[in-house]
């Protein structure tokens, strides 16, 4: 109820009251004006009708005057009808607007009454007037009749006619309005009455005269009565009375109108005053409103129930909500949920107490992001009653975020590894971070207020310094590499970035110098560089380095008319070492050899690890070929020296190919290729030596390719043949077996070196088919021998490691055996030492299977590899063959002697048979026998022989016991 009351008092302002009053006055004035208009109309109508009535009453009276003559009574009736119509009109007006009846009912009644009397008289008047008119006319006619009748009788004429004439004229005086002398007329009538019987017209005349007199009296009476009916006067009187009343009323009306007009003007004046006041207030209000609308502060007004009733634009801007979206809603739609319930409880406690609440609110924008508002919420009281809440809020999100950024920046400033100096506009240090102190060793106190020296490394410090500062005057940033001395005098490479900080008016405020310590980076860079261009194992420059630098070297040599020698060094059988002893050992060997070779070379010479076991040495300038040869020899020598790795003492050799720039090539690829070819040549020439590149070598390579081509056709053309070299028992001198050896006789190439084409066959895979060919041939031959009773114990065939990799080896082997019908115990399989060391389950399985079949297994070229003797023990091996290289210089070469002795002892301890290869003289035989080797093969006994030759040879041996 209370609110309602306030609502009303609020709603009805004095302005509105006055306005309503003004409108009321206007309405009243209008209504009154209408009334006046109606009155005027009524008055005018009444006056008009009265005037008309007045006129008509005169007309009526006028009829009364028109006595003794013909009157058209329709006209009288018309007049009456008009009169009655006017009366009716007046009567109606009088009835309808009785309260403004100026005329007065009495006046009207009086008029009506008089009128009706007059009309009644009129009717009588009409009747009598008709009679009299006709009567006079009749008398006139009768008089003429009498005159006619009596004109011949003078006496009678004189008496009767004269009298009649006299009567007629006396009566006729009526017409001119004179009083007629009735007695005289009656007298005269009496005079002629005696003659009525004499003539009909006389009697008629008498009757008519009397009738006329009688009627005239009646008419006179009527006219007299009419004279007393003052209708016109009554009408005139009513008119003047009406005018009087009207005037009075008009005066009253004017007074009332004036009153209304005056009060209207007064109200209008006061309305104008109020309007002026309101306008002023409005201007003030709109100024305030403008201020609020455009305030940076968010302003929110809610009603007592905390529903939003107003927000300014800043609200929209900061909250992201549109005004329409929040109108009528509780401001808690902004609630972020960050604050605790207790926070809001405390807030409400303050607000409920009617006090202002101040604090920072963390609210949520429409898009969900949070924002900070420094808020002040004020309850507004009107008449001691809470009417609204006003919230003034300042969005301090930017400030807080800036604070946070500053904090972050401060942390970065203090923790970053870069040294940072902040200088003032005079380039004096204001602040330095701790990293700066760490890098340069100066404490803050020692540098603040000083101008830092930009660069300590050059004499031209000042120059660089001024260049930087002038650059900064144009640009806002300078960055570059400098070197600065630290407190201890150490030169530190620095990446310096200087940034200019300007204020709003574009005036330099600060310089910020960022010192990035490049020491570590440079180290890292160098390391990376080293890794990229050096071999990690030997620390020698790698192939990439070679490729990068060789052009410079060549260019340098070209410019100086010098020559460069390129040594392609490849370790012999290094793969065997790797395969047999493991990569660790191989790596160690490489490391040691790298050091050794390096020592041989001159200081400026370049040694490169080109590949696995390939090195390239570049010597320049090369004085002459001999010098190069010396180098090569020296290299070979140092390589040959035993290498101690772990518990091993290993021996290795190398082959070296030498190519000369620019003689053997002008670009690195050619040079390297040619050196490589030369190296292969060296290898072919028995390894452990060096060869110069010659053009012929290139040709050889070509011929090797040709060889390969020819070999493919060899089996088809039956150019391949198997030779057999007998194996002897030294003591008995008997043939105990034969080794099947392949020979290739080409029409163009002649007898091709076995080692050479076998290598090609292995490399190309042709060895597989060639292998089976050999087996078939050899086994067939052996069968033949047996049938001939040659007493050759066994046939030995070489099986290459390539062949062993064939999955169907055993199947094919068995097929061949079955086909030929040879007993496996007569078969000896020769494998290489390297094959043994390619330790694998399948290899072991194959060997086991062969042994189970009864085949003998021997290891060929023993001593050239690096067999693990311990391991060999576990293998199913029957015999080992000492490589001919060990036998050849026996007994002169002590080294070979020792090796051979050791091998024989080893075989003995393992219970293997030993077969010596390449036995050429009796001294060797003696040595072998002396040391316990029973078997051998070689030119001393027989070279490999063709089928027929072998049979012949064996037969001859049979004969000689």
């Amino acid at each position, binding site marked *: 109820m209370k609110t309602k009351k306030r609502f009303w008092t609020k709603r009805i302002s004095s302005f509105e009251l006055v306005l309503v009053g003004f409108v009321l006055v206007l309405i009243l004035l209008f209504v009154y004006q209408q009334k006046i208009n109606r009155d005027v109309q009524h008055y005018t109508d009444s006056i008009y009708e009265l005037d008309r009535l007045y006129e008509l009453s005169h007309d009526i009276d006028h009829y009364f005057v028109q006595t003794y003559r*013909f009157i058209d009574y*329709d006209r009288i009736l018309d007049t009456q009808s008009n009169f009655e119509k006017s009366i009716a009109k007046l009567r109606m007006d009088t009835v309808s607007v009785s309260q403004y009846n100026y005329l007065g009912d009495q006046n009207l009644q009086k008029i009506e009454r008089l009128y009706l009397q007059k009309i009644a008289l009129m009717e009588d008047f009409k009747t009598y007037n008709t009679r009299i008119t006709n009567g006079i*006319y009749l008398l006139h006619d009768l008089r003429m009749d009498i005159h006619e009748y009596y004109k011949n009788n003078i006496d009678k004429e004189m008496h009767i006619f004269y009298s009649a004439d006299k009567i007629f004229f006396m009566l006729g005086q009526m*017409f001119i309005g004179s009083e007629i002398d009735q007695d005289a007329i009656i007298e005269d009538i009496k005079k002629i009455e005696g003659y009525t019987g004499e003539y009909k017209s006389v009697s008629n005349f008498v009757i008519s005269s009397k009738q006329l007199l009688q009627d005239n009296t009646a008419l006179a009476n009527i006219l007299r009565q009419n004279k007393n009916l003052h209708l016109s006067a009554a009408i005139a009187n009513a008119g003047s009375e009406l005018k009087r009343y009207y005037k009075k009323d008009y005066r009253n009306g004017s007074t009332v109108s004036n009153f209304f007009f005056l009060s209207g003007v007064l109200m209008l004046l006061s309305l104008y005053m109020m309007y002026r006041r309101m306008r002023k207030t409005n201007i003030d209000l709109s100024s305030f409103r403008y201020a609020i609308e455009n305030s940076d502060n968010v302003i929110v007004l809610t009603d007592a129930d905390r529903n939003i009733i107003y927000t300014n634009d800043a609200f929209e801007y900061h909250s992201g909500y549109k005004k329409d979206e929040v109108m009528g809603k509780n401001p808690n739609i902004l609630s972020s949920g960050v604050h605790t319930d207790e926070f809001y409880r405390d807030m409400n406690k303050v607000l409920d107490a009617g006090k202002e609440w101040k604090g920072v609110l963390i609210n949520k924008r429409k898009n969900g992001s949070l924002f900070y508002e420094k808020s002040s919420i004020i309850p507004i009281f009107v008449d001691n009653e809470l009417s609204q809440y006003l919230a003034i809020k300042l969005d301090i999100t930017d400030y807080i975020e800036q604070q946070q950024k500053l904090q972050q920046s401060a942390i970065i400033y203090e923790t970053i590894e870069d040294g940072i100096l902040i200088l003032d506009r005079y380039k004096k240090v204001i602040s330095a971070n701790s990293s700066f102190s760490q890098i340069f060793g100066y404490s803050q106190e020692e540098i603040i207020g000083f101008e830092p020296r930009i660069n300590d490394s050059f004499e031209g410090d000042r120059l660089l310094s001024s260049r930087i500062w002038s650059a900064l005057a144009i640009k806002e940033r300078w960055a570059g590499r400098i070197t600065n001395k630290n407190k201890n005098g150490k030169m530190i490479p620095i990446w310096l970035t200087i940034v200019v900080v300007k204020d709003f008016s574009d005036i330099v405020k600060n310089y910020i110098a960022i010192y990035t310590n490049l020491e570590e980076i440079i180290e890292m860079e160098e390391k990376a560089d080293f890794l990229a261009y050096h071999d990690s194992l030997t620390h020698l420059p790698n192939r990439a380095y070679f490729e990068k630098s060789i052009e410079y070297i060549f260019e340098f040599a070209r410019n100086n008319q010098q020559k460069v020698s390129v040594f392609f060094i490849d370790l012999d059988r290094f793969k065997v070492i790797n395969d047999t002893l493991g990569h660790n050992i191989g790596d160690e060997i490489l490391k040691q050899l790298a050091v050794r070779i390096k020592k041989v070379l001159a200081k400026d010479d370049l040694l490169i690890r080109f590949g696995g076991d390939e090195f390239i040495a570049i010597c320049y300038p090369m004085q002459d070929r001999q010098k190069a040869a010396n180098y090569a020899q020296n290299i070979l020598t140092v390589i040959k020296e035993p290498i101690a790795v772990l518990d091993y003492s290993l021996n290795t050799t190398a082959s070296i190919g030498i190519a000369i720039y620019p003689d053997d090539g002008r670009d690195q690829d050619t040079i390297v290729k040619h050196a490589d070819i030369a190296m292969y040549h060296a290898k072919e020439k028995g390894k452990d030596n060096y060869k110069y590149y010659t053009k012929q070598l290139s040709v050889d390579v070509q011929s090797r390719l040709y060889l390969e081509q020819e070999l493919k056709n060899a089996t088809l053309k039956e150019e391949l043949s198997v030779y057999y070299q007998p194996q002897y028992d030294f003591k008995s001198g008997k043939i105990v077996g034969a080794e099947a050896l392949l020979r290739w006789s080409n029409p163009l190439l002649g007898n091709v070196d076995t080692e050479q084409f076998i290598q090609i066959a292995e490399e190309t895979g042709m060895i597989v088919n060639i292998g089976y060919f050999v087996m078939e041939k050899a086994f067939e031959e052996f069968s033949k021998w047996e049938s001939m009773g040659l007493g050759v114990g066994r046939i030995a065939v070489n099986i290459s490691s390539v062949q062993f990799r064939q999955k169907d080896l055993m199947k094919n082997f068995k097929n061949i055996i079955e086909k030929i019908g040879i007993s496996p115990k007569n078969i000896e399989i020769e494998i290489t030492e390297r094959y043994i060391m390619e330790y694998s389950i399948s290899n072991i399985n194959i060997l086991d299977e062969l042994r189970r079949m009864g085949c003998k297994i021997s290891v060929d070229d023993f001593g050239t590899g690096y067999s693990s003797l311990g391991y060999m023990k576990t293998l199913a091996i029957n015999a080992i063959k000492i490589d001919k290289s060990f036998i050849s210089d026996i007994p002169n070469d002590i080294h070979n002697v020792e090796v051979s002795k050791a091998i024989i002892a080893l075989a003995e301890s393992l219970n293997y048979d030993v077969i010596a290869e390449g036995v050429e003289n009796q001294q060797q035989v003696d040595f072998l026998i002396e040391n316990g080797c029973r078997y051998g093969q070689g030119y001393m006994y027989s070279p490999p022989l063709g089928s027929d030759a072998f049979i012949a040879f064996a037969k001859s041996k049979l004969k000689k016991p």
Partner: protein
Amino acid sequence: MRVFVIKAVVSAICISCFMTVLCGSGNEPIKPIPSTIETDKKKVLLGKKLFNDPILSKDGTIACSSCHILQDGGDDNMKFSFGIGGKEGAINSPTIYNSVFNFRQFWDGRAKDLKDQVHGPVENPVEMGNQMHSAVEAIRKEQSYLKLFEDLYPDGVTPENIADAIAEFEKSLITPDSPFDKYLKGDENALSPQAKRGYWLFKSKGCVTCHHGINIGGNLYNKFGIFKESNSTNLGRYIVTKREEDRFVFRVPPLRNADLTAPYMHDGRATTLREAVVIMTQYQLGRHMEPEEIDDIVKFLKSLTGQIPQIEENRPYED
């Protein structure tokens, strides 16, 4: 000398007086009937229905049209009319035609106008013998009337409205274009020379003093029998006014269609027009007139017969 002067003056006045009546064709004492008169068509049709409907009479036998036969001069051609139950009335029924131009209705002029007149015959015991309110009751029972009344009058069927409708119908009953009216309008050939002579006599013998205006009479009262005792049983206006001088005073009857409205006089004492003219010369004018003169006047009177109006049949009301 004085006498002479008076003589001269009176003569002059007499002559001038009559000259106004006799001469001047633009100023004839008789005016032609207008060819149309303004009426409310619907009211006319309702009035016609009522006029022809015996519902107004007490026993439902007598309608207005029983005594005012529209095809026969607007009266019943009888001395006295017969009312309900065959009762004979005491007065000759006057023609209904042109009654609108009469200044009063009834022979004694007791009704101010046509509307006022309606009540008379309805409530006259020897005519319709009814009461107006009874007639209203009867009409209200007729559905066909109710609607018509409601259309025309906000207050429906009332005595007033019945009278209004009938009066409106009667108002429409005018007979324009009589030969004499045509003559008045300038058609010299509309009248025979005898009729023209009759008209001259009509004017010069004083008939016109009473019988003039648009309806040729009907605009004043006069005594029946000025020069000769009329011996009338009906006392005329005396019944209304009770004034001695109004004894035997009647409304001067209009002469239009006189040829069709025999018998004549309030008591129908004259059966022919000639007889009526003779009575008039003796009783009213106190003049002797020659038989030829009488014939001429009769001839003139016969030229007063106008066109009977054709009132549209009120078909819309009959279903």
